[in-house]
């Protein structure tokens, strides 16, 4: 039970309670049987309404009884509709009949109000209100909005009430501006109200200030609006720099116009083809976001749905992915640009590949985005808070997020040291979260250094050595360009999530890896080096080797596995095993 403290009870109290319980459960069973009997006979009458009301007042969650009430009321609404259309019925009859329905609906609002008072988190009771409002001839929305406010005063985070408010605001045609002001009022009362900030961001989105950039298709919010919103949220984080509500809102403001790959539904950039390349036995397509087969068919000159293979880091057999292979010995023709329906550019892929360089530049921070004015101020505010509260993780984290967004190259060193400080000192519970951000920053840094070579035709090698990588999330955008990867000396503990399906050479030496799980995306692998890893058992790698049928060379020097060379040789007869450096 939520918030019920354990207290000792006496024997006498226990006996009294048992007696009371026996009485109440017998009463319940009696009424329940009566309700079901009447329903089964189709007696949807006043008595049924009164019986269900009696039970629901004590327990609002018995949804079947609410269903019974709605059926009863719907029958009466239908009967009233007939009377209203009946030419023989008198006006008085009609008015009286209509009034009866309105009274009945008003009664439902009263009942559900009583239920919500004793159980403010009853799904059924809140649902009943919305149902009634949509059936009343002239619902009193002002009263309903007032009720929402009252309920939010009792518990400003009650999401049932917030959900209901959204419905009422829509039914009452409240403007976004009105609702934005409502959120203002609630935030001013209590700035630590995550729900109100959440409501606010949606209203801000809906306001006119957001527009879609015609050239890039990206949504963009006015710098002026972001600036003024930042002023508001600043008060909140200066008041309490530990409060997550204000920081979450700040982060949204920071990212709302961003071209980064956070897959926000309402502000993300349109899906673009990142690369298309032919690899002898497959055509590989890489997209900026995960896509499904029907979508990717619009990019190619085939309607065949059977020869596609998707790769993802979370599922062995995904239905949507950024990376797709079409298995065929001849290349597909691919649409690489489409300015209008008629103006389509096809790429044959026979002797060249398609690379969307500008999109890759955004993804890997090859160039820094122009910094709006308000960003300087935000960085300065964070800096001040860090001085005031050096042990508080939030200002340091927010500053780091801003730097990641706008100064990933200039402030690389500060980003790394901040993330280490967060992981090691300020917030060790989430150390791995910060390390994963650090890993991605270092990956981008390394890719930046070899970018021109990577997108050129001559090389297919990606080298990211000694870069503290904890994950290979993010390399998938290079799936069509990289055939040879070297991740020596990182902090990888596994590689089965890797999405580089055209790899033939892979070096993962000197990583803290103890086992290799099946990795369907490495089916073309011919060379693997696991030297200096902690793999010790043949059984902890064999499931992996079953997914790499083309493997012909394996380096496993300086691993405990060296002692099992003969056992391994028996399992991998066709592979050249290299247990010792030459």
């Amino acid at each position, binding site marked *: 039970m939520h918030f019920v403290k*354990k207290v000792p009870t006496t024997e006498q109290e226990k006996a009294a309670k048992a007696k009371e319980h026996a009485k109440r459960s017998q009463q319940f069973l009696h009424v329940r049987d009566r309700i079901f009997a009447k329903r089964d006979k189709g007696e949807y009458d006043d008595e049924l309404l009164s019986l269900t009301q009696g039970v629901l007042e004590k327990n609002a969650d018995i949804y079947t009884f609410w269903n019974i009430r709605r059926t009863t009321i719907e029958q009466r609404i239908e009967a009233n509709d007939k009377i209203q259309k009946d030419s023989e019925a008198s006006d008085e009859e009609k008015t009286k009949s209509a009034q009866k329905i309105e009274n009945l609906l008003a009664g439902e609002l009263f009942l559900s109000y009583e239920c919500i008072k004793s159980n403010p988190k009853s799904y059924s009771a809140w649902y009943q209100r919305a149902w009634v409002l949509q059936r009343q001839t002239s619902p009193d929305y002002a009263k309903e909005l007032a009720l929402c406010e009252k309920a939010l005063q009792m518990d400003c985070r009650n999401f049932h009430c917030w959900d209901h408010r959204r419905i009422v605001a829509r039914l009452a045609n409240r403007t976004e501006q009105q609702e934005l002001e409502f959120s203002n009022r609630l935030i001013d009362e209590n700035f630590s109200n995550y729900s109100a900030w959440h409501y606010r961001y949606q209203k801000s989105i809906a306001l006119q200030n957001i527009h879609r950039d015609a050239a890039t298709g990206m949504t963009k919010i006015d710098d002026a609006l972001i600036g003024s919103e930042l002023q508001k949220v600043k008060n909140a984080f200066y008041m309490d720099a530990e409060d997550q509500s204000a920081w979450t809102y700040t982060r949204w403001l920071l990212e709302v116009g961003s071209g980064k790959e*956070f897959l926000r539904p309402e502000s993300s950039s349109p899906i673009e083809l990142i690369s298309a390349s032919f690899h002898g036995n497959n055509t590989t397509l890489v997209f900026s976001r995960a896509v499904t087969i029907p979508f990717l068919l619009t990019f190619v000159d085939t309607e065949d749905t059977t020869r596609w293979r998707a790769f993802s880091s979370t599922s062995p057999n995904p239905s949507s992915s950024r990376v797709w292979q079409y298995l065929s010995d001849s290349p597909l023709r691919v649409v690489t640009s489409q300015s209008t329906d008629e103006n389509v550019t096809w790429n044959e892929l026979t002797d060249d590949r398609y690379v969307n360089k500008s999109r890759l530049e955004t993804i890997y921070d090859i160039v820094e985005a122009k910094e709006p004015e308000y960003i300087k101020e935000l960085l300065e505010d964070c800096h001040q808070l860090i001085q005031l509260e050096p042990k508080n993780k939030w200002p340091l984290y927010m500053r780091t997020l801003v730097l990641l967004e706008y100064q990933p190259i200039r402030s690389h060193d500060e980003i790394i040291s901040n993330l280490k400080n967060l992981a090691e000192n300020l917030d060790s519970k989430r150390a791995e979260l910060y390390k994963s951000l650090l890993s991605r920053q270092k990956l981008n840094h390394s890719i930046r250094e070899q970018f021109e070579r990577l997108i050129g035709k001559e090389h297919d090698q990606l080298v990211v050595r000694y870069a503290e990588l904890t994950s290979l999330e993010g390399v998938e955008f290079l799936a069509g360009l990289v055939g040879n990867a070297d991740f020596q000396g990182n902090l990888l503990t596994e590689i089965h999530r890797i999405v580089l399906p055209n790899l033939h050479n892979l070096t993962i030496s000197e990583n803290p890896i103890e086992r290799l799980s099946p990795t369907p995306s490495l089916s073309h692998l011919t060379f693997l080096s696991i030297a200096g890893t902690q793999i010790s058992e043949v059984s902890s790698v064999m499931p992996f080797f079953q997914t790499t049928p083309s493997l012909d060379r394996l380096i496993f020097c300086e691993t405990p596995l060296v002692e099992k060379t003969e056992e391994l040789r028996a399992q991998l007869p066709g592979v050249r095993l290299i247990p010792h450096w030459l």
Partner: protein
Amino acid sequence: MSFAGLLDFARKDVELPMNSPKELLQDLHSNFILKYEKDKNGYHYIMAEHLRVSGIYWCANAMDLTKNLDRMSREEIVDYVLCCRNSDGGYGPAPGHDSHLLHTLCAVQTLIIFDSLEKADADSICKYVQRLQQEDGSFCGDQSGEVDTRFTLCSFATCHLLGPLSVLNVDSAVRFLMRCYNTDGGFGTRPGSESHSGQIYCCVGALAIAGRLAEIDRDRTAEWLAFRQCDSGGLNGRPEKLPDVCYSWWVLASLSILGRLHFIDQSAMKTFIYACQDDETGGFADRPGDCSSFDNSQLHELSTLQFGVTVFQKIL
């Protein structure tokens, strides 16, 4: 005390009592469940009729995971669940009650646990689920018309367990889920609703069943979930709320699906869950020191118990 100090004092968290349990009290928990199961004339059993099939599933799942399933009355339970089937193909929580997706899924799961799925009519169940899908891809939980992303998970899970998911319109269902995806990385009940751990579990679970997890920013969602861990080690359901054992399940299961369980401090969280156990009666409280068996809430305790046990047996 400074203003900031006062705020720290009011910060939403709990302290773990020194003498709280430090290991999983499996036997006590099994007995807690069996006692509940046997007491069919008891007040708590009767008054929670509107949740019963779900309660049965929670008990059976906890007993199954602790390898105590043979201590339950298999035939009686299976017969009872089958009696909850309605003519529309769905299952209610108890005989006489209307069908609901929540209980339909729990009925299917219970039958699977007791190896009795062949006694259910898979086809009519799937048709029942199918009829609850709306034009916009969402699902109503029952005839009432109430829409919630919880019901998308129930639908996907039910059909996935019974046969091909393709009996549903998966594309439009996923489109609806993505409308409920918030910029903080979480998911809410409906488009526009605030992010909530339980809802994230439902949406992430549904996307995983459909093989479409790649459509969300897994790092962002996992980050929001990781910030649910409080200093006490416990997990809350939303920012600035108190930690609660049941969120151990919603948050951890989601992180596990996203492949990012390491984003939180697992050992601190274990200590918190251990401390929530009632070392006299068995069962779990929401948080250390709270009561594990009180009036109408026994079913809540059973769900909490099930979550606690499942976390240990399936995730950690």
